[in-house]
């Protein structure tokens, strides 16, 4: 087998997710899928359920994947990749089977099929591309939408401001099924990303990768900031990078000091309305989340619960956050 990959330089230069797809400029999903496919290589069968990815990568009758590519319904990613793997076993075909589902297709609609495949320990790779709402159908809230975020189904008004629930911890649900490997990825932490995908590629059994993929129209931000936002999410603790293997979680990146959550929220129009109470609630939840993930064994980065006041002001730009 080829050498293990550790940095960008070790990545193969062949693209299997090609140019000419119809994603919005600055799409985080496209960045994640393109690099995962570079690492997985040619012996891979791809399955995509209903999501942005199917719409922009496979505009009938063209396809942006150079690999065998399959599409059926929204809710059955876990079941379909199980079936593809069974067919491969039967016919003696070697290779990885990967399912790219969105957050809606994993957290909500596809949960039972994903959970079933994980529990059976199928030999497949499941990638959840988390853009934190149903972006393809026009930004509806999902289980992955973070606290306070605006979506069309968690609107901002006098009574309620954005989503009132915290983000569902899908990694916990996956880990409860005892998979072979589970990890969270960020498109802004390159070496970490490459190592985890490469590790998952070499393993057998159910492997789950959870990628944060910023969405330019859905998060109401600028296309130039996609990767920057993924980095800020990790630096503020909104996204934690860890992997789960042999029954224990291991932190793979620990920021020295957690930056105030407003650094991450400010560039995004979907959080523009958040009140000071809501900000403090979110910040407190973030500071406690660390212990929830890692216990007290990994020292928590310094986290300021009552951070200095930074109002989410309107900066005078008429297209602020659009």
């Amino acid at each position: 087998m080829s050498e293990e990959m550790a940095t960008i330089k070790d990545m193969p230069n062949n693209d299997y997710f090609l140019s000419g797809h119809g994603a919005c400029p600055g799409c985080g999903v496209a960045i994640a899928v393109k690099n995962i496919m570079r690492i997985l290589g040619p012996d891979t069968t791809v399955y995509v359920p209903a999501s942005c990815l199917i719409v922009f990568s496979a505009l009938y009758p063209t396809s942006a994947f150079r690999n065998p590519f399959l599409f059926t319904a929204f809710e059955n990613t876990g079941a379909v990749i199980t079936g593809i793997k069974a067919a491969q076993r039967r016919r003696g075909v070697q290779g990885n089977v990967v399912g790219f589902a969105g957050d809606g297709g994993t957290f909500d609609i596809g949960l039972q099929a994903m959970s079933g495949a994980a529990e059976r320990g199928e030999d497949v790779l499941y990638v959840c591309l988390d853009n934190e709402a149903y972006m393809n159908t026009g930004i509806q809230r999902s289980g992955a939408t973070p606290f306070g975020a605006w979506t069309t189904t968690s609107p901002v008004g006098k009574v309620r401001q954005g989503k009132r629930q915290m983000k569902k911890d899908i990694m916990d649900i996956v880990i409860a099924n005892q998979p072979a490997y589970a990890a969270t990825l960020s498109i802004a932490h390159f070496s970490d990303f490459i190592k985890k995908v490469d590790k998952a590629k070499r393993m057998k059994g159910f492997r789950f990768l959870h990628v944060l993929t910023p969405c330019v129209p859905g998060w109401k931000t600028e296309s130039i900031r996609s990767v920057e936002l993924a980095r800020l999410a990790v630096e503020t603790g909104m996204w934690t990078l860890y992997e789960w293997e042999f029954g224990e979680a291991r932190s793979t990146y620990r920021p020295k000091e957690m930056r105030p959550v407003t650094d991450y929220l400010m560039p995004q129009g979907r959080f523009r309305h958040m009140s000071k109470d809501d900000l403090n609630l979110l910040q407190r939840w973030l500071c406690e989340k660390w212990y929830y993930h890692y216990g007290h064994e990994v020292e928590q980065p310094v986290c300021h619960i009552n951070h200095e006041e930074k109002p989410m002001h309107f900066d005078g730009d008429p297209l602020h956050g659009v």
Partner: protein
Amino acid sequence: MAAQAFAEAAVLSGHHAQAFPYFGAERRGAPVRAFARVDDAKITIKSQIYEPDLVVILDESLLEIDPVVDGLKAEGRAVVNTMKGPEELDLGVSVDCAAVDASIIALETIKAPIVNTAILGALARMTDLVTIEAVKQAISDRFGEKLGPQAAAANSLAAELAYQRAKVGRCKGERPIVQRKVWLPDWEKVPPGVVLAQDSVEGVAIGPGSSLTNFTGTWRTVTPRYLKEKCIRCLRCWFCCPEGCIKRQPDDYEKWDYRYCKGCGICSNVCPVQAIVMEKGVKEW
């Protein structure tokens, strides 16, 4: 949204109107279509418009790839977002035409290359169905409700400037109208469960990797410029380009494939040594 604002302006001017978008996937920068129909009597027809009296073209580069003036009546009119004057324009049919540089107006007023409100001002100049006051009122109503009063004011100003700056003339009709490839395999050729192999049928590429025939480079408004002498070969831009249009060379320097670049600017943002700068306009180096 522009079609809706136009229909609203027509209603304010005392007509009946309807507006609706083309049903399909809408992505930022992707070619999209919308329709508006105006009459003095109640409108009962519900179909798309195939033979328009007036065509509004928000991006001149669409003329190269799409039959935008297809079906335009001989006595029809056009409004085009362009840097050229109306006499220099070549739409493929010779019609009365208003030319306006709506992109510049949009950048001046709303600080973003979103031209749909500016072009409405030029549209008011071209047709007597709506007055510029009605257009501004409709924009204020529609945008003010969604984006706040400041956005409404900026967008109304864009329409006003476009109304003043639009140049009316008669355009040329020399260009052959590009016909869209109509063939798609139907369900009889490809029933559910059948595999599309890598192939090309009647000029349309199908199957694995066929998206390469779809050149997305026309979407961009800014273009990355690569300064090779500053590059430290960290490959971050190569990793972060969503389009895969940054090609890694054997010596780890980069090369851009501008046919696909959508101008998102991520490469310039992740570059640690500012070896990539974004320049306005669709360019190539």
